C-alpha cells in the first residue's frame, strides 16, 4: 500500500492500517456496546433508577432487595436446574446421537436433518408447540388416558414442582441437534488409527469412547459447552412462550427477572442489579476460559 522506501521504522500506528480500519466495527462493538454497556449497567445498578436511568446512588440497596426476593431465588434455582440438566442431557444425548451417526450409517443426511431442524425454529415456536403437546387436556396426557390408562398423569407445565423439566424437554428438543452436529464434527476429526489401535488392543467399543475418544475431544467439548452455556444463561423466550414463568413463579429465570423488573416494574435499578449478578456469574465462568482460549495462545 505504501510505495515509498522507508529508511527508518515507520510509525507503529500506520502498520496494518487496513486491518485496523476493517476492525473498527469490532472494536466499537466490543468497547462501546459490550464493555461500555456493561460498565453502564453496573454503575446504574447502584442507583434507584425507576423508569429512566437516574444517577441517584443508593449503595447496595438493590442487591439486598434482590437477594431477599423469593422470585430471584427461585429464578436462580431454576437456572441451576435447567442449566445442569441441559448441559448433562444435551451433551449425553448429543454425543450418543453423534456416536450413532458416526457408524457410517445410511440415510445419514436424513437423520441429521431431522435432529437439526428444531434448531431452525425460534424458541417462541418451540415453546408454543411443547406447551401444546404437554397440555394435559389434549396433549400427551389425554392421549395416553384415551388409550385406557385413565390415571396417567403427565402435566409438567401445570405442576410447580416439575414445570422446569417441562421447559427442559422443549429446550433439549431444540438444542441437541446442534450439539450433535458439533460433536459429530469432533468425532470425525479423531484419527482413524486410534480406533484401529483400540480394536487391536481388544478394547470394547464403549470403553474406547469413554476412556479414549471423549478425552481426546476435549476442545470440541469445550466449544460446545461454551455454546450451550451461553444459551442457558440467556434462556428467556422459551420460558415466556411456554409457561410465562408459571405456574406462579415456579418457572421463572433470571433473564426474565431482569426484563420484568426493568420494564414491567419500571425499576431499572433492580433490573440492573440482577443483570450485574448474571454478568458476574458469566464472567466467573467465561473469563478464565476466554483467557486460556484466546489470550494466552498465539497463532503458530
Amino acid at each position, binding site marked *: 500500500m505504501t510505495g515509498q522506501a522507508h529508511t527508518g521504522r515507520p510509525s507503529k500506528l500506520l502498520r496494518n492500517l487496513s486491518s485496523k480500519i476493517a476492525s473498527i466495527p469490532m472494536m466499537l462493538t466490543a468497547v462501546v456496546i459490550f464493555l461500555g454497556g456493561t460498565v453502564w449497567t453496573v454503575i446504574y445498578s447502584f442507583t434507584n433508577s425507576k423508569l429512566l436511568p437516574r444517577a441517584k446512588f443508593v449503595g447496595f440497596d438493590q442487591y439486598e432487595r434482590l437477594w431477599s426476593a423469593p422470585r430471584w431465588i427461585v429464578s436462580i434455582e431454576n437456572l441451576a436446574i435447567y442449566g445442569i440438566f441441559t448441559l448433562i442431557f444435551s451433551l449425553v444425548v448429543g454425543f450418543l446421537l453423534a456416536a450413532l451417526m458416526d457408524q457410517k450409517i445410511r440415510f445419514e443426511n436424513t437423520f441429521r436433518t431431522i435432529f437439526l431442524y428444531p434448531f431452525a425454529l425460534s424458541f417462541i415456536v418451540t415453546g408454543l408447540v411443547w406447551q401444546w403437546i404437554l397440555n394435559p387436556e389434549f396433549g400427551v396426557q389425554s392421549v395416553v388416558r384415551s388409550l385406557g390408562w385413565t390415571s396417567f398423569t403427565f402435566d409438567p407445565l401445570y405442576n410447580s414442582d416439575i414445570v422446569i423439566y417441562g421447559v427442559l424437554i422443549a429446550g433439549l428438543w431444540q438444542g441437541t441437534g446442534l450439539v450433535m452436529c458439533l460433536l459429530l464434527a469432533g468425532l470425525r476429526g479423531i484419527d482413524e488409527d486410534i480406533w484401529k489401535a483400540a480394536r487391536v*488392543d481388544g478394547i470394547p467399543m464403549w470403553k474406547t469412547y469413554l476412556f479414549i475418544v471423549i478425552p481426546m475431544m476435549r476442545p470440541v467439548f469445550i466449544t460446545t459447552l461454551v455454546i450451550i452455556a451461553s444459551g442457558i444463561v440467556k434462556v428467556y423466550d422459551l420460558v415466556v412462550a411456554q409457561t410465562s414463568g408459571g405456574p406462579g413463579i415456579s418457572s421463572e429465570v433470571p433473564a426474565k427477572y431482569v426484563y420484568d423488573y426493568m420494564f414491567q416494574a419500571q425499576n431499572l435499578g433492580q433490573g440492573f442489579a440482577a443483570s450485574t449478578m448474571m454478568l458476574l456469574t458469566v464472567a466467573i465462568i467465561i473469563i478464565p476460559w476466554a483467557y486460556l482460549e484466546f489470550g494466552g495462545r498465539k497463532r503458530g
Partner: protein
Amino acid sequence: MQKSVSIKDLSLSFGAVNVLENLNLDIGEGEFLVLLGSSGCGKSTLLNCIAGLLEPTGGQIFIKNKNVTWEEPKDRGIGMVFQSYALYPQMTVEKNLSFGLQVAKMPKAEIDKRVARAAEILQIGPLLKRKPSELSGGQRQRVAIGRALVRDVDVFLFDEPLSNLDAKLRSELRVEIKRLHQSLKNTMVYVTHDQIEALTLADRIAIMKSGVIQQLADPNTIYNAPKNMFVAGFIGSPSMNFLRGEIVEKGGKPIFVANGVDFALDGYAAGEPLQAGRKVVLGVRPEHVKVNEDGPGADHHQATVDIEEPMGADNLLWLKHAGHTMSVRVAGARRFKPGTAVKLSFDMGLASLFDAGTEERI
C-alpha cells in the same frame, strides 16, 4: 519353512473399487516381510485385513494355521503399530502400554511385569509417567511398538511406522527395529514406501502395484534381478537407467544397440535365448556404470556431464550419453564440472534386460 501367516485368495473391494484381488501370500515363522509399494497400491488394506480391521470380500486368512478370517483383531495374536503412532493422548505411557491388558483383566502383577519388560527392551523406562504429547516423535513410535510388545503377540504388523519421523531418527529407529526382530524373532509384516527401509529390514520384500504382488523375494534378488521393469524402476535411488533398443547379432554374439551405440552383453545371464531384432530395454543401475575407468565399453561410450549432485559420500552425475540422460554414481571425492567429457564402461553381469513389450525380465 513353518507358516506363520497365510493368505489365500484374498479379495477386498470398497464398493465398486477392487483394491485387492485373489491375493496369495505365505509368511514364514519369524520372518520379516516388507510390503513395499507406492501410495494407494493397497498395502495398508492388506495389513488391515490381516489385523482383522477390514473384513475381506473373499478369501481366507490363517495365522498359525488357524483360520482367523472372521476373528476379532484382539483374538488373532497380532499387534499393530501405526504411522501416526495412535497413542491415547490423555494417558501416560504406562497407561498406554497397560490399558489393553487391564481391559483383558490380566492380574496387576503380570501387567507390571510385562510393562517393565517392554520398557526395558525399548529403553523407555524413564518416560513411563509422561504423556505422549511430552515425547519426541521417536519416543512416541517406541511406545507404539511397546503397546504391541506387551501383548506378547505372534505377529507384529507395522504400517509405515517411521514415515512421520525425520531422516536421522528414521535411520536410528530402523536399526532398533532390526535389532528388536533379531532378539524377539517374531513374525513381522512391515508396510512402507521407503525402499531403504525395505532393503535394510526385510528378509523378503513383496513389491505391490495396484493390489497385485509384483515380486516376492529377498532384497538382494529384488535389487539385482528385478522381475520386471516396474520393480526395477521402483527400487534404487536414483532409479535404474533404462535404455531402449534392440538385440543385434554381431560377431555371432547377440549385442544390444541403443541410439546407435553398442553394448556387449558378455556376462549377462539371460533366462531365454536373445534373438536378433527383439526390442528390449537395458537397465543399468547408476552405481554399476564406471566413469573414466577401464572396463567393457570404455573405448566407445562417450558422455558429457550435465549436472553434478555431490551428496557427501557419493557424487551423483547426470550425463548426456548417446541421446539419453543417464545417472551415474561415483565416490564423493570424485568431482566433475558440468560439461566435462567422460568415458563410460558397463558391467553387464549387474545389468538387467527386459522385453520392451511385456516389460518382463529376460
